[in-house]
């Protein structure tokens, strides 16, 4: 083990396939013991980035350091990584024991040590007693755990997970997410996880890396990314969001306040704005659906109140989504825990909507289509 703090460091990694840039100047440090999710839509370069770290894809430019050592030119079998695939990639002709023992045998450990370490790895994923089964005789969730044990048993510097949960059904996936997180915390292994499922990334990651068209859009703890997305892409990709297109019509930096006018002439006050905001510039106001306040008509006047009409109420289990249209014509979605009074709203009902100023954020204007 090296002395440097970070387990993995990507330094200006770039990869082209023919004319397409799959990974564009990605720089990222993964701290020892950290759980990092690479998150983005398909084709954003997240899997390519992971495969560059693993060594199965060679970067065109940039350096890759594992444990502080430049491993850019090292083949995958000399990189000290453990990888779990979406397909699990278990060896179907070998038993569970032999699958897990594979990496140890490649390292020429003694038989006794192999037996001991495989046993511990199988304990870790709660698969003791299944040693003699073939992968084909196990359920999807069990196969996934064998793949995890096989990757962990070699004590790699970094665990690489390539959408390992996406082949499981929704309920099992939820359960495995929690198990994976608990396991990762317990053994403190540095982990890089690739997923297109933003909820999975929010659940698992210490830090998430949002990728789009090969570039990093934003890096940060899930809570930060969710509350303070840097741009429309991040806001839109991570969780659900309401956007109102318009212009900045006044800025008061001493108060950290700005006035924003939507294209439908609704005037909103935004608090906590940062410097650099230019009056007259195009922007998007953004608010999470759970932050919008709804109330019946006739209350006292408040800031950012918009009269609106209920379009429909959608029941989705633990959440109720209320779709609204303001009188000026803007569409808004509001989420509430189910069981509240909002469920009684009828389509066409006229209510008041409040967009609390601290919950509103201004993002750079969207690119014109």
């Amino acid at each position, binding site marked *: 083990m090296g002395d440097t703090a970070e387990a993995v460091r990507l330094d200006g990694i770039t990869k082209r396939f023919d004319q397409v840039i799959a990974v564009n100047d990605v720089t990222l440090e993964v701290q020892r013991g950290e759980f990092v999710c690479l998150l983005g839509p398909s084709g954003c370069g997240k899997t390519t980035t992971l495969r560059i770290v693993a060594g199965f894809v060679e970067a065109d430019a940039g350096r890759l350091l594992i444990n502080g050592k430049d491993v850019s030119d090292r083949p995958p079998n000399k990189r000290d990584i453990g990888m779990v*695939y979406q397909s699990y990639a278990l*060896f179907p002709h070998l038993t569970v024991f032999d699958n897990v023992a*594979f*990496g140890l045998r*490649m390292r020429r450990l003694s038989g006794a040590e192999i037996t001991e370490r495989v046993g511990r790895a199988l304990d870790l994923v709660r698969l003791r007693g299944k040693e003699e089964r073939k992968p084909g005789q196990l359920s999807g969730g069990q196969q996934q755990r064998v793949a995890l044990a096989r990757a962990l048993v070699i004590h790699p510097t970094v665990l690489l997970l390539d959408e390992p949960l996406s082949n499981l059904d929704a309920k099992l996936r939820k359960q495995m997410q929690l198990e994976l997180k608990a396991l990762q915390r317990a053994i403190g292994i540095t982990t890089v996880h690739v997923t297109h499922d933003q909820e999975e990334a929010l659940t698992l990651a210490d830090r998430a890396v949002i990728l789009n068209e090969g570039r990093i859009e934003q890096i940060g703890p899930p809570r930060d990314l969710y509350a303070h997305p840097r741009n429309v892409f991040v806001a839109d990709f991570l969780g659900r969001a309401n956007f109102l297109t318009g212009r900045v019509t006044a800025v008061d930096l001493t108060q950290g306040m700005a006035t924003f006018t939507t294209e439908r002439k609704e005037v909103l006050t935004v608090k906590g704005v940062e410097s650099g905001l230019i009056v007259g510039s195009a922007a998007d106001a953004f608010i999470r659906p759970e932050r919008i306040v709804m109330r019946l008509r006739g209350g006292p006047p408040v800031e950012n109140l918009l009269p609106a009409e209920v379009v429909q109420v959608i029941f989705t289990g633990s959440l109720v989504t209320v779709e609204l249209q303001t009188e000026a014509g803007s569409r808004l979605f509001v989420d509430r825990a189910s069981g509240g009074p909002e469920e009684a709203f009828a389509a066409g009902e006229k209510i008041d909507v409040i967009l609390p100023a601290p919950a509103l954020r201004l993002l750079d204007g969207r690119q014109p289509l």
Partner: protein
Amino acid sequence: MLPRRRTTGHLFLRMWCGLVFAFLLAPIAILFLTSFTASETLAFPPAQYSVRWYAKVLQHLKDAPGLKPGLTGVFLLSLRIGLIAAAGTTVAGVLAAYAMHRYRFRGMAILRQYFLLPLMFPQIVTGIALLVWFNHLTALGPFVRLILGHMILTLPYVVVTVGASLEATGTDLEEAAIGLGASRLRAFLLVTLPLIRQGVIAGAIFAFIISFNAFTITYFLYSGDALPLPIWIFEYMAYFLDPTLAAISSCLILLTLLAMFALDRLVGIGRLVTR
């Protein structure tokens, strides 16, 4: 699965299938029956039955000095050529199929077609070409020529069966093995090879059968010292068109069935076909 229904259509389908099977089996059955004829000609159905032509086959087993080689030697020669050609072709075919599966390179589509050429060319063309070519390679004896010729002929079969197995196996598993610390060679030997085993065995069996049966190409390459079975039968037929041929053929069919049974016991032909 849809439930099976007993309808008139279903009955007709069964009868049709029965007819097709009968049509396929009839020549073999007729040949088999003809081999037991008592008469001097290959007439069917035989008026009277005897095993005299099998006695004749036994006489042909030994060499007739100065005249022609015996069936035993000829059969063993064909067996040897088939086994050596199949072994050589299997090694070359696995390597070629693996390279084309694992690496993406310019001109690969052309190379893939190139490997299939012996399958597309009329065998007579390949035969003539080899005859001319081998005339320049005088150092090669007839036995080596036959093996090389049969390897060319059988290579496409191995490339195709092994290629299909590799395609079904994908690259994830070998990659996973390398990720776990295996060298490329060990990953291939420990993971990929066991997984494509059935394709390799199927290809090898194909190669052997094609070589053992090959007549056209063999006709251009054989010599008096190295005279394989199909040529022996052909030459015999040119002189005597008697039921001995039917008896030899029946023996070959029996041997083939025995070999298939043994192979099934050994590796499971059923599984070869289904995978």
